[in-house]
């Protein structure tokens, strides 16, 4: 009951937030220099003044800003993100085609980063003088300060060109023969480098935070109690301490959703991963306003849904968040 009303409240806030994002994005695109009609005309191979005028009328570009805005918002509410001049397709269709590729990348990278980050953090908190602990500190510094595209390109050079273990680009190899398993293995092979690149920043973040909270938790009174009960080290660490260390890490992971999305744009570009990031870059270069707006809207949606899920996960690990 409590949960349902909380979720309802959150969803309402999320909707309001999305609306605000929509208005803001649209206004910013409108303020950006350049003439959209001109861009459209170019993609058709150029046009004279008369055709330009025609385009303006067709796309409603001659109408006042506010009516363009309300038009757009109205359409979005009906799940219509407009029509791409560049791709000659509805933006919604375009996004849904590219979405799975991005989700696979982003979700795998986030999960991997969480699992590895937490394990590294726990391990280094327990062995503070060991080399893993120093490695975590160093890796955290490196992973967080190295630009994603740089890491990506280095990995490409090392493991695709010098030592050709993994494919250079793309998501699937169309020449691969065989059943679902062969296709899946091919997908995995393509995923390795982009996932590692994207995960590396977050592994660094999570392991450092987890190490710090774990060290703090291990000093608490309730861990002393757990020891006084004669529990094994494994139970103390992975049951009593870990569940308490997870809240901050989950909170951080939630906050990182937007960074994951922007990181995905860079990683997809480096590895020619056919997802929303590549689509975003192409549509920016082509000045394909409806597609850009659609992707921005969708990223906001992903971030907001991600935050909602984070809240739910927090309620799951920490009863104090649940209230009475």
């Amino acid at each position: 009951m409590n949960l349902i009303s909380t979720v309802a409240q959150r969803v309402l806030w999320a909707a309001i937030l999305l609306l605000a994002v929509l208005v803001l994005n649209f206004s910013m695109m409108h303020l950006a220099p350049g003439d959209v009609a001109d861009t459209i005309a170019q993609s058709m191979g150029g046009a004279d003044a008369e055709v330009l005028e025609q385009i303006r009328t067709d796309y409603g570009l001659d109408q006042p800003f506010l009516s363009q805005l309300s038009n757009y918002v109205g359409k979005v509410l009906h799940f219509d993100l407009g029509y791409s001049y560049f791709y000659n397709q509805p933006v919604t269709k375009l996004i849904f085609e590219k979405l799975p590729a991005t989700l696979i990348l982003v979700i795998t990278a986030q999960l991997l980063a969480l699992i590895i980050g937490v394990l590294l953090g726990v391990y280094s908190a327990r062995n503070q003088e060991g080399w893993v602990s120093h490695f975590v500190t160093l890796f955290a510094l490196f992973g967080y300060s190295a630009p994603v595209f740089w890491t990506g390109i280095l990995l490409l050079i090392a493991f695709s060109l010098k030592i050709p273990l993994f494919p250079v680009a793309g998501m699937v190899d169309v020449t691969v023969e065989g059943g679902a398993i062969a296709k899946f293995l091919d997908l995995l092979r393509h995923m390795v480098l982009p996932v590692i690149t994207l995960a590396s920043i977050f592994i660094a973040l999570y392991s450092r935070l987890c190490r710090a909270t774990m060290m703090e938790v291990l000093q608490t009174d309730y861990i002393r109690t757990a020891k006084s009960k004669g529990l094994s080290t494994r139970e103390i660490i992975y049951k009593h301490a870990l569940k308490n260390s997870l809240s901050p890490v989950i909170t951080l992971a939630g906050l990182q959703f937007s960074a994951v999305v922007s990181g995905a744009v860079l990683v997809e570009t480096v590895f020619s991963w056919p997802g929303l990031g590549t689509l975003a870059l192409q549509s920016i270069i082509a000045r394909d306003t409806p597609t850009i707006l659609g992707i921005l809207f969708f990223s906001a949606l992903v971030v907001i849904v991600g935050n909602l899920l984070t809240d739910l996960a927090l309620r799951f690990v920490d009863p104090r968040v649940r209230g009475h």
Partner: protein
Amino acid sequence: MSALLSVENLRIELDTRAGVAPVIDDLSFSLNAGETLSFVGESGCGKSMTALAIMGLLPEKIGRVASGSILFNGEDITKASDERLREIRGNDISMIFQEPMTSLNPVFTIGEQVAEVLRRHQKLGRKAAWSTAVELLNSVRIPDAARRAKSYPHQLSGGQRQRVMIAMALACKPRILIADEPTTALDVTIQAQIFDLLEDLQAQTGSAIIMITHDMGVVAEIAERMIVMYAGRMVEHGNVDDVLSRPRHPYTKGLIGCVPHLMATLTDSRPELTEISGIVPGLNEFGQNACLFASRCNLVGQQCVQARPKEKQFENTQLSACWHAESV
């Protein structure tokens, strides 16, 4: 008859910024099965350290048993393996801590936290452990225990949390229960209830209790024998009745003088409440070859600052580490 627990010449050292300090300095005592022994002394005298040493839970890295032994049923647990210590903890020797608000894990239900001990030591299955946990919560007088077992610590008051700690500590009917100032953080009204509960449960389980407190009133109420600690050393030891009626150490006398109702029952005259001036020395002043109480003592003489007092034994087995024990 050999004692259940026998501590011999125990010295515990802590690493501090100023160097190594003997937080427990040559402590010897014994505990018999089923009896209640009280440790009393002001804050910072090393009472908790003694308890943690017996549990094998001295602060990691900075604390260690430097010499001496702790014999439990004849077995020296300062030399026991971690594995053996884990068998003893929570099963043969368990402990209740001073901080009920923070001693329970916030993310597990109280039922689970009690049941866990039973699964660990009594090898009970999940179901059996849970229902025994509910019985235990019931026996520490948690109302509506079956339902409350599913509560989390933050949903309970301090007094109730301490009851949960007691249920957990007594779950396996330990031979020894160490209670480290179990009511210090609680309301005075709750205090009497907790002591009643402990006494009732002790009658059922037959556990010996080491009751740590800074309150002479508590000692008078529940213990048979008592040890007075000061700055890491035992300064007086004896039967509670003997010590309270005729303390043989000025520090003990001072502690008794601080408790109004104790004074009223011990003397018929209008009690004159006194306080001991000064404070307990810091850790880096422990271990000197002198009486560490000298600076606060009104009987202080030349000898007191030149040598650590020898323990004097009286006929009633009372023991005092004071150069002026006879004249106190």
